[in-house]
């Protein structure tokens, strides 16, 4: 069967194509770099491309075929997941479907998330993370998820959603979806990432945190991540070309050791510290907050400590999720995580 190959990333966003699973779909987060602490989440590549248009999205520079594809044989995907889980039965795997697209943006058309939620409900040592900028949760609310799925939102201020996250759900709609999901018993993940500097960023993020915590009880929050804008150097021109009104690329940024451009460290630290202080006003004392792809010294400045390694952070996740929500087959043992590859 012939399929048109879209050369421009925007062209393929409108047409969803169902494909069979090819090769390996389960992997680790592609941003893994030893100088920056990664949370060691696993990714299940079940969707390629996204109907949304975030000006900073790396997909505009990543996908060679711009068409939107959904892997529609969930059973095959799950077989691969089960094989991985069987190889390390005492370890808790966090598995997200958001690496190359939004986990829920196409849910009304595909129903893929429903199938995955029900499949993960039967697993003992895995948590599914569905991360989205949409509000497409209605079809998920009545599912028997058994607490094994975390519905996560990528969150930003109203101003930034309007100027940089085109076609996505407004903050009001995302917050409403968070409220409904928490009400349906789902654990909630909050990703304040990418934080972006603009004139009134402090007011924006303060209001964002207040709005979100009005919708979700702190004890239903599985994890909170904080990260800042970062992109490959080649993306600069792409962003400027595709989104000429965006001011993202003109900020004070430097090239990091992971070959990504990000805000200079003093700016990042001040952003993270500000947001974390706001979060602490609302979140539970034992909440699990972490920085996405940041240096150990930045962790120290924001949290006053840092994990020993990527593997240690993975263990801290497992420990927190087991203690607070009973997730995982058994009490996590640190040594089992420290030897993981």
């Amino acid at each position, binding site marked *: 069967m012939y399929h048109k190959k879209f*050369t421009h990333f925007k062209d393929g966003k409108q047409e969803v194509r169902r494909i069979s699973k090819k090769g390996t779909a389960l992997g680790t987060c592609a941003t893994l770099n030893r100088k920056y602490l990664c949370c060691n989440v696993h990714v299940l590549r079940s969707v390629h491309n996204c109907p949304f248009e975030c000006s900073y999205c790396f997909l505009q520079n990543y996908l060679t075929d711009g068409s939107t594809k959904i892997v529609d044989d969930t059973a095959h995907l799950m077989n691969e997941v089960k094989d991985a889980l069987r190889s390390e039965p005492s370890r808790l795997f966090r598995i997200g479907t958001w690496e190359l697209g939004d986990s829920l943006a196409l849910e009304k058309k595909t129903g893929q998330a429903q199938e995955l939620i029900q499949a993960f409900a039967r697993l003992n040592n895995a948590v599914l993370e569905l991360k989205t900028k949409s509000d497409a949760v209605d079809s998920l609310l009545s599912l028997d998820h058994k607490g094994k799925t975390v519905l996560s939102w990528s969150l930003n201020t109203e101003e930034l959603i309007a100027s940089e996250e085109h076609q996505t759900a407004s903050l009001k709609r995302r917050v409403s979806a968070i409220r409904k999901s928490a009400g349906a018993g789902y654990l909630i993940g909050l990703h304040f990432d990418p934080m972006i500097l603009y004139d009134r960023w402090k007011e924006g993020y303060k209001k964002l945190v207040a709005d979100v915590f009005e919708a979700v009880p702190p004890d239903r929050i599985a994890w909170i991540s904080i990260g800042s804008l970062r992109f490959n150097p080649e993306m600069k*021109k792409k962003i*400027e*070309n595709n989104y000429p009104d965006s*001011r993202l*690329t*003109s*900020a*004070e940024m*430097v*090239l*990091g*050791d992971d070959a990504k451009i990000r805000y*200079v*460290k*003093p*700016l990042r630290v001040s952003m993270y510290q500000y947001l974390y202080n706001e979060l602490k006003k609302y979140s539970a004392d034992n909440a699990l907050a972490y920085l996405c792809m940041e*240096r150990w*010294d930045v962790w120290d400045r924001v949290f006053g400590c840092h994990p020993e390694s990527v593997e240690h952070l993975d263990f801290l996740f497992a420990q927190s999720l087991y203690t607070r929500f009973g997730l995982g087959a058994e009490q996590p043992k640190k040594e089992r995580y420290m030897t993981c590859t």
Partner: protein
Amino acid sequence: MPTESIHINDVLINDSRFALRDFIFDSISEPSCHLNTFCTLGILYPIVVYRDRKGLIHLVDGRKRAEYAKQSDERLIRAMVLPETTPVTDIVSLIHCNRRNDIESSVMNKVQFLCFAISMNVPESWILKVLCGALEFKPHTEFLRECERIFHLPRELRQFCHEKKFSLKQLLNLSYYSPDILSQLIQWNTSLQLTASTLDEIASHLKDYLRATNKRIKDFLAEPEVEDIFESSLSQRDKTEKLRQLLYLKRFPTLSAVNANIRGIIKQLHLPKEIQITWDGTLENKKLDVTLNISDPQKWQPVLDTLASPDVKEAVQSILDEL
């Protein structure tokens, strides 16, 4: 191919559809060199022309010979006449072979020659597969569109890029700047000493600064520090350096301030020349490199004493706090 004598006045030279005048900057050569040869030996080789469907004769190769013949009031000139059916790809290949020195004298010219081929309606698949290879480009799908972007730069700037041997990346960077920045760069070419890399850096920082501050170029030029530079009696080279520093400061205010602070801390230590402290200027890595340059063993102990002093320890702590 046999030659024939044709009327020189029938040959379209500047108006030839194959004229490269708008596409290739000539390399600097001695025009009298050709004239001398023509005067002493005459026109040795036939020109190459193309006869179109309407019978018009377009010069393909031999502009200097044709011009000399015209100036010398010759009536006829020997020519190889390409028939109307000649594939345009063959003609473009022929021009490339005959003008290789000029075409390949700069990346700018090579890019412009590709644009010439596009203007001739040469199939893009052939350009990508054959011509790009011959010009040592490794094209991707958007490559020809990028070449067209470059070709749309103002002619004066393209000429500058040709003379200064801009790389493809530098040319492409330039093609993304707004017309007012490009126009300013052309104006600065007379008051600053610009190389390919300094122009690239100045343009990039200026563009980002204007976007970040929502200013226009005339706002920037009216800033007192900028006026000071251009109204000063500094040499072109010093003005260029001052402008670079100023733009860096405006583009990276946090980075500049922190690095200046660290430099200040180190300066206050009055370290002996045997001790050097360096750090990552991007501030990403929280670490200091302390280098000892010892050529006299007698200096070893005093250097170690300096390093172990409370002042140095305190300074190291302060710098690490900054990082």
